């Protein structure tokens, strides 16, 4: 077990090193524009640009630049400075992180609970009208673009411009430590949007998995023992059927931390995605680079956690 975990950790670190190298290529070598000119902004005179180039180390060879960049990331967690505002990327990201975390974890809670509930109810009576409507509805939700769903919900329910003014609209987000109640209500619509598609996928997976589990022999045994149907389904069925959900939950949360940009843009939530979106408009590559690295870190960590959880639950995995 310990050896397996160590092997996974080493590969995780290697993965992060490779991704860092890739982002270096993507954001330093690929763009045809000159970072020093971008950094100079309106002060486009050759002397200032030369100075900036020296400050940024752009006059050194690419290999030296790469070495300094990697050293910065892995020894000092230094992600560089924004071209646009000159602020360190690390602190820009950390001030924006709470909003994104609120959005993602609240959304995850919502999609997990609704997805499981709908999946279990559907699996109890496969082929029934209830099952067919909820699975059809699930497929529609999977197919709907989330930002569009967000706009529709705002159009219908937003307190400022909606037709039925119920929930706070775009730009109403406040921090949790400020006003907890306002924080909660302002996130209701974004949570629904974030959760809709994933809840639909979870419902489909849970349904399939539970239908398969319920045909196992030990379920018949449990029934024969005279257990209540509720107990059979929840204790014996769901418990075994839930493992594919656990596998993807971590990865979905990590992936959403990276792709929250769409929902944050629609609802004007000051999170990492929004930071990224604004950075794109200024060609502020250090910020984009920093967020890509952070997102990759989330994915790698989630992957390792899932693998370890799996190895813990299923001994066969360790030997493969």
């Amino acid at each position, binding site marked *: 077990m310990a050896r397996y975990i160590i092997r996974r950790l080493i*590969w995780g670190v290697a*993965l992060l090193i*490779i*991704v860092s190298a*890739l*982002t270096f290529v*993507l*954001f330093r070598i*690929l*763009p*045809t*524009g000159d970072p020093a000119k971008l950094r100079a902004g309106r002060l486009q005179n050759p002397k200032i640009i030369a100075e900036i180039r020296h400050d940024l180390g752009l006059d050194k060879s690419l290999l030296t630049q790469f070495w300094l960049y990697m050293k910065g990331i892995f020894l000092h967690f230094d992600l560089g400075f924004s071209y646009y505002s000159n602020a360190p990327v690390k602190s820009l990201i950390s001030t924006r992180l709470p909003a994104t975390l609120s959005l993602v974890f609240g959304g995850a809670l919502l999609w997990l609970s609704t997805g499981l509930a709908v999946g279990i109810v559907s699996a109890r009576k*496969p*082929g029934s009208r209830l099952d067919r409507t909820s699975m059809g509805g699930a*497929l*529609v939700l*999977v*197919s*709907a*673009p989330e*930002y*569009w769903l967000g*706009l*529709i919900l*705002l*159009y219908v329910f*937003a307190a400022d*411009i909606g037709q039925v003014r119920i929930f706070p609209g775009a730009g109403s987000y406040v921090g949790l430590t400020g006003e907890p109640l306002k924080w909660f209500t302002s996130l209701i619509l974004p949570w629904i949007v974030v959760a809709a598609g994933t809840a639909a996928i979870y419902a489909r997976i849970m349904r399939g998995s539970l*239908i398969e589990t319920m045909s196992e022999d030990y379920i018949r045994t449990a029934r024969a023992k005279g257990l209540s149907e509720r107990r059979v389904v929840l204790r014996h069925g769901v418990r075994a059927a839930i493992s594919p959900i656990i596998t993807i939950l971590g990865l979905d949360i990590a*992936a959403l931390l*990276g*792709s929250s*940009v*769409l929902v944050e*843009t*629609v609802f004007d939530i000051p999170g990492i995605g929004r930071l*990224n*979106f604004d950075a*794109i*408009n200024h*060609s502020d*590559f250090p910020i*984009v*680079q920093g*967020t*890509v690295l952070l*997102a*990759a870190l989330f*994915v*790698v960590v989630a*992957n390792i956690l899932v693998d370890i959880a799996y190895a813990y639950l299923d001994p066969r995995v360790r030997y493969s």
Partner: protein
Amino acid sequence: MSARGAETLPSSGGNLEFLDIGGEIAALSPLQLFWRRFRQDRVSLVSLGFIGFLVLLAIFAPLVVDILGLPSPYTPNSNLTDSFGSPLGPSGAHPFGVDQLGEDVMSRVIYGTRVSLEVGILGTAIATVIGVVVGVLAGFYRGWVDTVLSRLIDVVLSIPILLLGLGIGAACAVRGCVNGTIQPGLGVIIFLITLVNWTYIARIVRGLVLSLREREFVDASRALGASNTRIMFREILPNLVAPVIVYATLLVPINILIEASLSFLGVGVRPPTASWGQMIASATPIFNTAWWYMTFPGIALLLTVLAFNLLGDGLRDALNPRTAR
């Protein structure tokens, strides 16, 4: 001959497992079995019909717009906005209303089909070819080839595609990338989709090949002296066609949504080219007054993606006899 045999089947023989050809009993080929099951799946047939309709719409977009009597998608008309610059809503002449520039939304939605299908189908085709090649190599040769390729897949999968798309889109937005080889717009999006989504096909193909290469018919072919290349092309590839078609079909809607998302974020297809995502983006500032502008492109996107998802589900069920409906 076999066509005539099929015609003489009794109409109630939907469950017949054998086809009567000239008095001899012949088993149905897997393709015939598949078609028989697929034909009974009404939802998939409707989806397939709808996708065919979209393809025709994309090809003949100028003609359709002409027949419907709509202005071309690139004709701004300031007469169609009121004195505050707000566009006019749906009317007889403009069934889906107009946008801020007075361009006809229905006409733009029709032209938007082109972008979505181009990205969806072209992006999927390239990603699928790469995915199959990598998957077959990794699964067939195993060992270090498999290790290297699988690790490569890990690396690609650890970068969220939207962020990567934002980065590449922004990096290539001004003067293109790699000295102009990758042009901004559609080129960047297809490049990005290919870069990331081959992994999806490659993983599945690798798994299939790992089990296929252990089958008896591969041993038989090897015993007959077949080379590795021949085994890969003649024995393994034909067995991959069905599952690859299913997963490629399910990849199309994903790619269409990626294009729309990137265009929504402003790093994909740019105006004046009509793309559904980009239309939703430019509808965002006025969505509370001009509901039609965000609604119709969104519905077009939803229906297209849904059709591909339903078709993919149907194909999978038809190809896999074990799936219970």
